[in-house]
């Protein structure tokens, strides 16, 4: 089993997610510089949070054109698991590995806080540690997490069960108040058609340690560890 974290200029959650991965998998992931054009044999690729290229122009746009992304796309096509967190999610949409786009938060403000998420799809390799419908607590920290997709795409996402997480209140209701960024349909994370690529705005690596306030995020890394170790 091997995991890798892709590091772009401006990534800043690369270390955080590496710590969480190592904790759950017992082995440190490979850290891959964006300028590389080849990847070692891998089971999981993580595109971490941060501000790749300063988030200038559009979040994730420049990173999506890095040499390494060609290779990430090729691996994703072959079924390797790819997890994009926050900026990583933005990179995946810009690279068109996931549909839709992440726009400026409706409040126009950066928002950093714990939010409640409802696990809408508990069947993927990423989410099978959760129960379907379970409400978990995971922090967000972003200025551009306002998910947008056109009507047709949205219908498909919903119809195919590809919405992984929704922002909800403590009772599991997807209300406007529970939506930190204006995302359409309170969408916090989505899967690709084959279910091997997940993009999500919240940061599971930030609640993977009781000392930091919770472990709901760790469940995801532990589930991934089981899949890739199997």
């Amino acid at each position: 089993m091997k995991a890798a974290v892709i590091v772009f200029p401006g990534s800043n959650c690369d270390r955080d997610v590496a710590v969480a991965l190592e904790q759950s998998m017992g082995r440190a992931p490979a850290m891959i510089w964006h300028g590389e054009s080849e990847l070692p044999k891998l089971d999981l690729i993580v595109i971490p949070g941060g501000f790749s290229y300063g988030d200038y122009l559009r979040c994730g746009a420049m990173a999506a054109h890095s040499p390494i992304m060609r290779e990430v796309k090729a691996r994703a096509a072959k079924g390797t698991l790819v997890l994009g967190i926050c900026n990583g999610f933005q990179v995946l949409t810009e690279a068109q590995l996931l549909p839709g786009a992440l726009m400026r938060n409706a409040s126009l403000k950066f928002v950093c806080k714990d939010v409640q998420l409802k696990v809408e799809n508990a069947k993927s390799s990423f989410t099978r540690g959760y129960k379907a419908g379970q409400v978990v607590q995971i922090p967000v920290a972003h200025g551009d997490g306002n998910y947008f997709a056109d009507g047709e795409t949205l219908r498909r996402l919903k119809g195919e069960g590809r919405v992984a997480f929704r922002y909800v209140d403590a009772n599991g209701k997807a209300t406007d108040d529970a939506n930190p960024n204006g995302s359409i349909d309170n969408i916090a994370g989505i899967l690709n058609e084959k279910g091997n690529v997940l993009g999500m705005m919240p940061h599971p690596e930030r609640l993977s340690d009781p000392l930091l306030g919770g472990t709901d995020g760790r469940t995801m890394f532990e589930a991934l560890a089981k899949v890739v170790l199997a």
Partner: protein
Amino acid sequence: MNSTLARDTATVTPEIAAEHGLSPAEYERVLQILGRAPNLTELGIFSVMWSEHCSYKSSKVWLKKLPTTAPWVICGPGENAGVIDIGDGLACIFKMESHNHPSFIEPYQGAATGVGGILRDVFTMGARPVANLNALRFGAPDHPRTRHLVAGVVAGIGGYGNCVGVPTVGGNTAFDPSYNGNILVNAMTVGVADADRIFYSAASGVGNPVVYVGSKTGRDGIHGATMASAEFDEQAEAKRPTVQVGDPFTEKLLIEACLELMAEDVIVAIQDMGAAGLTSSSFEMASKGGMGVEVDLDKVPVRERAMTAYEIMLSESQERMLMILKPGRENVARRIFQKWELDFAVIGKLTDTGRMVLKHHGETVADLPIAPLADSAPQYERPYLPTPKPAALDPASVKSAGAPLDSLKTLMAAPDLASKRWIWEQYDHMVMGDTVVRPGGDASIVRIHGTERGLAMTADCTPRYCVADPSEGGKQAVAEAWRNLTAVGARPLAITDNMNFGNPEKPEIMGQFAGCIEGMRDACLALDFPVVSGNVSLYNETSGKAILPTPMIGAVGTVEDLDNFATADFRRDGESIVLLGETKGHLGRSVYLRDLLGRDEGAPPPVDLAAERRNGDFVRGLIESGDIVTCHDVADGGLLVAIAEMALAGGIGAEIAAPDALPCPLHAWLFGEDQGRYLVTVRNPETVLQQAREAGVPAFVLGRTGGDALTLAGAGTISLGELRQAHEGWLPRYMAAPDALTQV
């Protein structure tokens, strides 16, 4: 030599010197040192090196009075930041710095570049920045500019800190009309380094290369007055803004590149280019090492055409560093900076001449003796007029503002006491994965990466105390910082200060400055809490009206075992709430008096430093031994406000009662701001009361936690929901108006 220098000599007149901020006496000294008139570039260098900002000419004699040593101090004031030993072979490097004026002009960029500057001060010494804090002072909420400034400053601090990936974990925010024309933006960075790999700025080694890295130099921040002079009118373009724009992405790369380079054995000395950019960095590095320096300005990476020597030397472009490398190691460094796609240029070398020589287009454009320029930098013992001691206000003479719970509700929504969540939720306070105690409490705690120990940090100052009695106010600021660290269970180690004052040429202002320093000194000595770094910002005045004296204190301590620390939230029903420390009902200069009765009167609450230490050491002992996990110091607003904050933080109410025999009226007891007090909760209070008695710490059981309301015996009940709406509602509501929109 003088012949090649002659080119623009003729243009320097005493008037131009005055425009550069040099007094006639100072200009006379320039002429003496050089034995000739300076040219414009040289004049520019003198003017920045002798500016208040770089030379501390008004404050130095006073700053010398502050205690700066302790066994754990590795490096005190004088370097880019202060360094303390935090055990396990690690050092903590930290400093606070103001960016007041630029933030008033352009709040977003001013605040953003303030954060960038203080980050560089810390990583330039070899530390990885692990946390940022920010202390903010704005004008009255109803002043027409305030909302726009709050919005821009907060967005700027977040925009920069979030992007570089350093968590912003705490701060301090308040409003007062005295800041209407002069807001304060004091940014602090805390970093961690290996104690045996600290980098300093003193240059050494004749012939060693002088290396420039980071962003290119543009005409950023070059002073407007000089831009208007004939020499620079050549392009006759619209008045060029002197605002500097921050590039946090480049800063992030610079941090990573510098830390990577520091792991190699190639750096002799390193210094960020802060205010006065290339001038102060090259000058100070050479001066500290007793060296000369020769720089070829043609080698400096520039981003604009036809930049003059004057502009290159005085530019305040951001995200740049200067280093002296070991001979022959340029390629190691170049490779690293190329990997991070940053500019890298060898721009000169160290010499043994003791002079700063600048070449441009093959000509010598400046030739200055370093030691005389540094040694005869002006230092003033400015006349000062001590602030007259105010008479104490007898609490019995202050009428009540109304029913206690009504007063509480109003105070919880008062601008200074209302929750600052709207601010800190715009800051990424969790990135780096070590934020154990988030903003919103007394001090924030960041785990020292890879260990089970923590760094606690806070920023504090109560200017309304300082203006009434500078000495007591200075003392209180230090004591409150110490108390906030103690309240989470940390061992307070050292402070950084940011002295924000009005015009030092006025004796009353110098009196405030001197008084604050005296009080700070007393507190630092009594609490073993030395000053290791700091910054001075003077001339914070508009139309002759000065800001409240604001000696902002940033403080750092260690939590020895992250199994044992405390936070302010009530965690369980049915626990006894114990008040530690003495309550006399001091209402002078309290928020109650000011916000509810409209009176700015009396003396501030005195700080009894012996009691402060006794009470604090006692509380810390309880936390360290694991006996208590809920603790909050009693600060602005007094006892009832502190209890309400604890209840809201934990979502658990309380029932409390005042003792039968009160030393003062009830409202004074509830809202007085007596110092040195803490609230803790325990399941069984007997042991704690007994231990407190033995330690000589006044202790009193106020009541019990529980329910979802706050009940004060004989005065009624207020629900937590109502309190929360008041406390959390004010700032978001205030900021909802359209003039708060910042796009960027």
